[in-house]
């Protein structure tokens, strides 16, 4: 589904953050992306989310060479990708419920068609009591869960999550991991960037380790 070949990336004139990265993400796969802080995990996720272009190398997503994708097609491709940003990117003036339903709203869906789904998902991530609360009032962990719920809302083909358990306690982390695995069982490919070895040990999944710009893969 996603194919990287000799991908390199540098910011401006700085050093190459990513060097000769080659890997595949098959459909319905589950993997962790790890590495020391500053190794380039977020940068790699941005490449996968089409919000950065590689300085060199080839990226194919959904069977298209991303170098040849016109700007207007990007929204449609992004709709097939769910992303949980490291800093959540929630809109402060919308309630949790509205933030989570945003992906459906921008796709032009009517509220009555998704309302109960959104509420159910919010309850499942433990935000049933926080439906009408604005993000500034939420705790870090609650924001995180809202961001995850938003990424899952439209059933993406691949879910990219940047430190999705960084702000929650171990039981909640396990619960979120369970959610990701459930999602994966239903066919969504999942890529979780994390430093949390305890989390990774809970699942027997592929580990992609970034260090000094190189990527090593352990299955």
């Amino acid at each position, binding site marked *: 589904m996603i194919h990287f070949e000799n991908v390199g990336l540098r910011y401006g004139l700085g050093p190459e953050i990513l060097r000769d990265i080659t890997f595949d993400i098959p459909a319905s796969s589950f993997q962790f992306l790890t590495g020391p802080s500053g190794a380039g995990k977020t940068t790699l996720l941005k490449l996968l989310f089409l919000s950065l272009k590689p300085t060199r190398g080839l990226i194919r997503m959904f069977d298209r060479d991303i170098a040849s994708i016109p700007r207007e097609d990007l929204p449609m491709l992004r709709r097939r990708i769910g992303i949980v940003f490291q800093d959540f990117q929630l809109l402060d003036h919308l309630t949790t419920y509205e933030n989570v339903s945003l992906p459906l709203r921008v796709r032009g869906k009517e509220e009555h068609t998704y309302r109960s789904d959104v509420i*159910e998902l919010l309850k*499942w991530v433990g935000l049933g009591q926080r439906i*009408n609360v604005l993000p500034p009032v939420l705790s870090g962990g609650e924001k995180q869960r809202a961001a995850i719920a*938003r990424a*899952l809302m439209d059933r993406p083909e691949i879910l990219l999550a940047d430190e999705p358990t960084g702000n929650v306690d171990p039981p909640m982390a396990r619960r979120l991991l369970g959610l990701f695995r459930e999602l994966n069982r239903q066919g969504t490919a999942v890529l979780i960037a994390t430093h949390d070895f305890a989390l990774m040990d809970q699942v027997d999944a592929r580990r992609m380790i970034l260090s000094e710009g190189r990527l090593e893969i352990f299955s």
Partner: protein
Amino acid sequence: MSVAEKTPAPPERKRLNDGATRPHGPIVPSANVQGSALLAVIAIMSFLACLTLGGVSMVRATAASWQSQISREITIQIKPDDNFDMEKALNDARNLASSFVGVTGATIMDKQATSRLLEPWLGASLDIDELPVPRLVIVTIDESAPPDFAALRDALSKKIPQASLDDHRTWVNRLVSMARTTVAIGTGVLVLVFSAMVLTVIFATRGALSGNRHIVEVLHFVGAEASFVANEFQKHFLIISLKGSGAGSALAALFFMLASWWQSRSLATPASDQATALFGTFSVGWLGYVGIALTMILIAGLTTLTARLTVMRTIYEIDQIRSDPARSDGLNT
């Protein structure tokens, strides 16, 4: 959504089922678009634009009416002289003028009318017989086929040496050129006011949008198309600009209405006459009000369009950063 369907229901599910939510809040909160400054700018600019537009059309109409009034009439002036039968001379002049082709009528301005004409200078208790005042014959002519002025003038001076013909031609010519200059200047001012308005609206709209980049980004990243994001913002700007330009134009229309009402009410008072002489009548006519309405629509459209283009541009910049990581002033995920 099926993820949730297949997961075990949390215990609070029944109790809280379908917890009430407020109606969807607007994606772009109106408080984020700092509308009041923009609204004021738009109102002022549209007021000025309408005022200029009204002014120009007024001068134009006035000049045109002066021109046609003056060129529709010529006057024969007969100077008094000793031992001179003024009444006979006046009758002769009228008959002579009436005999010319192209003349549609000739009337002698009677004594009352003459003294009324002189009243501002000589006072009300004027006995016209005691004073050697010149008398007038007003000759109306067919504008499209005017009489031969030179022949008329010749015939007149032969018969009545004291008579002189004023065809107002110099006046008409002066008026025409003055009106043209005024309209040209007014049009120039109108162009300036409109350009200033366009630029102000553009800058004010950009300013009002600049704080909302984060919203644009988030919408873009959850898969919104550029046109969707632009529509969300556009709505606000359409409302603001309609309010602003509506207020400005209404004020301008009110101004013209009040002015024309004042003028008609105080007709023939010296102040009003003065204003009429200077500005013409204040009525801008229905065409003027149509112009004001058009100005309003133009301003509203312009603001909305600027908002749309600015949002589109912001999205374009976000996508540019994608291909140029050095400019990563965007999201720092």
